[in-house]
């Protein structure tokens, strides 16, 4: 069953297995399914046999049987329990694998809004409702919504993740088959929820590079972020040469920051985002809460770009 053309109209019974986890998910699914089928068969056969054998107008042994009820009940409590625990362990390990992205993945940003998907690549390539990714390389998509909850769902990859307003969520996959695959919004988000569809286009690495080059915009994500950093006025305070007493942002990403009041926080994307939108919520130790909130002035796309820029600032670069 080649899943290369899941977009065509042919009747399918099983979805294409186009990501590194798809076969694993299917295996677990079939295992549980097999157990279900076996159990159902046993049940149906028993009901069938009892119905015939003990049909009221038939002669049959109907004397009370010796009471071994307890043993039977014990058996059908413990056996399902063990089977269930087995499935749980299997499912939990796979769940962890699906949920936790590998560290070296390619980073793509996605912005969901009623009713479209916007993607932004590290090179600054932007696309709408279509996502190009390379074959055989893990890709992490960082998701955020501008309005309600959406959900990023690619059936051929067996992955799904809700997209929340005001909070980054993340999903990863490694495509193992080239082709075009459906992308759905799986969380109800209003009128055109059903129209919030797109596709993921998986290309062999060389083709992918060519695509990147052909659609390269004037500036990369980081460059755009740098431009925004200046035009929004961040540099006025955060530039090392600035006279305002504001923290130097070089090398901040991933560092543990000391906050006023003794708490600490890891400067991940969510932290950087909060710093721009809710600067007073976590004030850095040793600084006055001077920074204004940029809520309403920066949209999610601009925030993504600025974060990419801040992430690109190595500690060594500061003068």
């Amino acid at each position, binding site marked *: 069953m080649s899943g290369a053309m899941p977009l065509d109209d042919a009747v399918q019974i099983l979805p294409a297995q186009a990501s590194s986890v798809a076969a694993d998910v299917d295996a677990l699914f079939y295992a549980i399914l097999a157990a279900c089928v076996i159990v159902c068969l046993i049940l149906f056969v028993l009901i069938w046999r009892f119905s015939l054998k003990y049909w009221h107008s038939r002669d049959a042994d109907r004397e009370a049987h010796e009471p071994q009820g307890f043993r039977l009940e014990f058996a059908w409590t413990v056996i399902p329990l063990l089977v269930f625990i087995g499935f749980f362990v299997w499912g939990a390990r796979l769940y962890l694998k699906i949920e936790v992205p590998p560290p070296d993945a390619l980073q793509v940003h996605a912005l969901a809004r009623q009713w479209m998907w916007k993607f932004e690549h590290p090179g600054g390539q932007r696309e709408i409702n279509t996502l190009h990714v390379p074959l055989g390389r893990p890709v992490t998509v960082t998701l955020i919504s501008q309005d309600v909850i959406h959900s990023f769902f690619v059936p051929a990859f067996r992955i799904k993740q809700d997209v929340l307003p005001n909070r980054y969520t993340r999903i990863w996959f490694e495509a193992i088959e080239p082709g075009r695959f459906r992308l759905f919004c799986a969380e109800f988000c209003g009128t055109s929820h059903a129209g919030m569809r797109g596709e993921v286009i998986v290309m062999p690495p060389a083709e992918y590079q060519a695509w990147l080059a052909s659609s390269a915009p004037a500036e990369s994500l980081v460059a755009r972020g740098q431009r925004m950093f200046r035009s929004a006025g961040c540099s006025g305070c955060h530039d090392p040469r600035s006279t305002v007493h504001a923290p130097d942002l070089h090398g901040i990403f991933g560092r543990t920051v000391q906050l006023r*009041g003794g708490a600490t926080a890891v400067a991940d994307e969510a932290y950087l985002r909060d710093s721009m939108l*809710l600067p*007073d*919520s976590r*004030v850095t130790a040793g600084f006055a*809460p001077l920074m204004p909130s940029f809520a309403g002035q920066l949209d999610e796309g601009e925030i993504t770009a600025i974060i990419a820029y801040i992430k690109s600032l190595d500690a060594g670069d500061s003068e």
Partner: protein
Amino acid sequence: MPDSRALRAQFDDLGQQREAAALGMWVLLATEVLFFGALFTGYTVYRLAFHDAFVAGSGHLNVVLGTANTAVLITSSLTMALADVASRSGSRRAVIGFLAATAVLGSAFLAIKGLEYAQEYREGLVPLNSLVFSYSGPDAERVQMFFNFYFAMTGWHSLHLLIGIGLLIVFIVLAWRGRDRVRLEGNVRAGALYWHFVDIVWLFLFPVLYLVR
């Protein structure tokens, strides 16, 4: 043999009827615990996340009035408990007196609460649609979240108290009109359980809202 109207047809005797009423009342209170429980859960989640903002918000509440109100409500619970005892063994006049005292104390609580709301309104701390929430300190959004909970929780509590006062007034009228002992006792019993419960909720609301550190 007590008044025949006192024993309902589905019960065999008054003891059974009384026990059923008590159990019914307590089951209702268990329900109420979870009613408020949803609010307390939300509050806890945000308070853990936005600790500083909640401290700041709490700092704008009037602890003096809050403390006074707590004392008022505790006192009303005492008078309610006394009304309960009186309905079993005391005179009808005592019952009416204690019920009336309880209703007055309950109203006093609401009056003081209203005073606080007014004060918060003047400071621009009421996050209602048309009113502007004009908090000038840092992290105004999350402070507003504190006030959202403050108003939702105290508002819901005050509504309960209002219902309680209504019940008391009904009981007072019934007692006045000479309702028979058995039935009045049942009413006051149920009302008392409800009233004490509303008091208990406040005993938690007070530290949780006013004394955040």
